[in-house]
């Protein structure tokens, strides 16, 4: 009998970089139950960290504690992440990639995060719905 493989994990993090360790722990457990390789885990971790770090660093101007929602799922060979935050509207797909071929002296030190996300995932979609940023990323394994 053909059985579909399905897995879902949801969790919330506060908008604080100290939560990165928690994010990694959740992802590692998800990867283990999904039987993902170290390389795939590395790339998924990179995509999630860059998105979360952007939200924490640029999403909020107040000092309040906010919650970022993560929903990780696997259906057969597709891994899908949905990240929802109530920060300032931000479409990561609208950011121009940095110049990666200019000389060292002109090279920016930052700005590589979203380029890495696009490299690590096969598809990235952004929506703004009712005051929320909803980012959906998919990787086929």
């Amino acid at each position, binding site marked *: 009998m053909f059985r579909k493989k399905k897995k879902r994990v949801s969790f919330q993090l506060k908008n604080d970089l100290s939560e990165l360790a928690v994010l990694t722990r959740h992802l590692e457990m998800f990867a283990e139950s999904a039987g993902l390789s170290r390389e795939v885990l590395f790339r998924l971790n*990179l995509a999630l960290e860059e998105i979360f770090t952007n939200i924490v660093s640029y999403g909020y101007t107040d000092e309040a504690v906010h919650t970022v929602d993560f929903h990780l799922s696997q259906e057969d060979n597709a891994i899908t992440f949905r990240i929802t935050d109530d920060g300032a509207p931000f479409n990561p797909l609208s950011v121009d990639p940095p110049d990666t071929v200019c000389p060292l002296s002109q090279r920016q030190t*930052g700005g590589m*995060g979203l380029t890495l996300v696009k490299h690590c995932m096969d598809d990235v979609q952004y929506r703004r719905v009712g005051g929320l940023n909803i980012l959906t990323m998919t990787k086929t394994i």
Partner: protein
Amino acid sequence: MEIIENTENDITAFKIAGRLDSKTSDAFDRRLSETMENGARRILVDCSELAYISSAGLRVFIKAAKYLQRAEEGAIVLCAMEDYVREVFEIAGFDSFIPIARTCEEGRERLKRPEE
């Protein structure tokens, strides 16, 4: 993350074990900056136990490469990294500024000053 530093024959070698992410990279950045400000100009970074790096970690290396480019006889070489770590440097195009040696011995060779 753990950082081990040792200086031998005017090469300062760092070994990074663990993760260089947005939370941990600052500690390595401070350590590396302090070492360079104290005069270190030939820097080797052993990445054999570097399990993970994100854009925050990349930033530390490009900052160091920029500093050393302006300094006289400054050079940084990374060595012994996993393929998927190396890929991050390649996507960012940083491998054209920062030599990545396959082994630490090869890295040390690259950092030797030319014989006078």
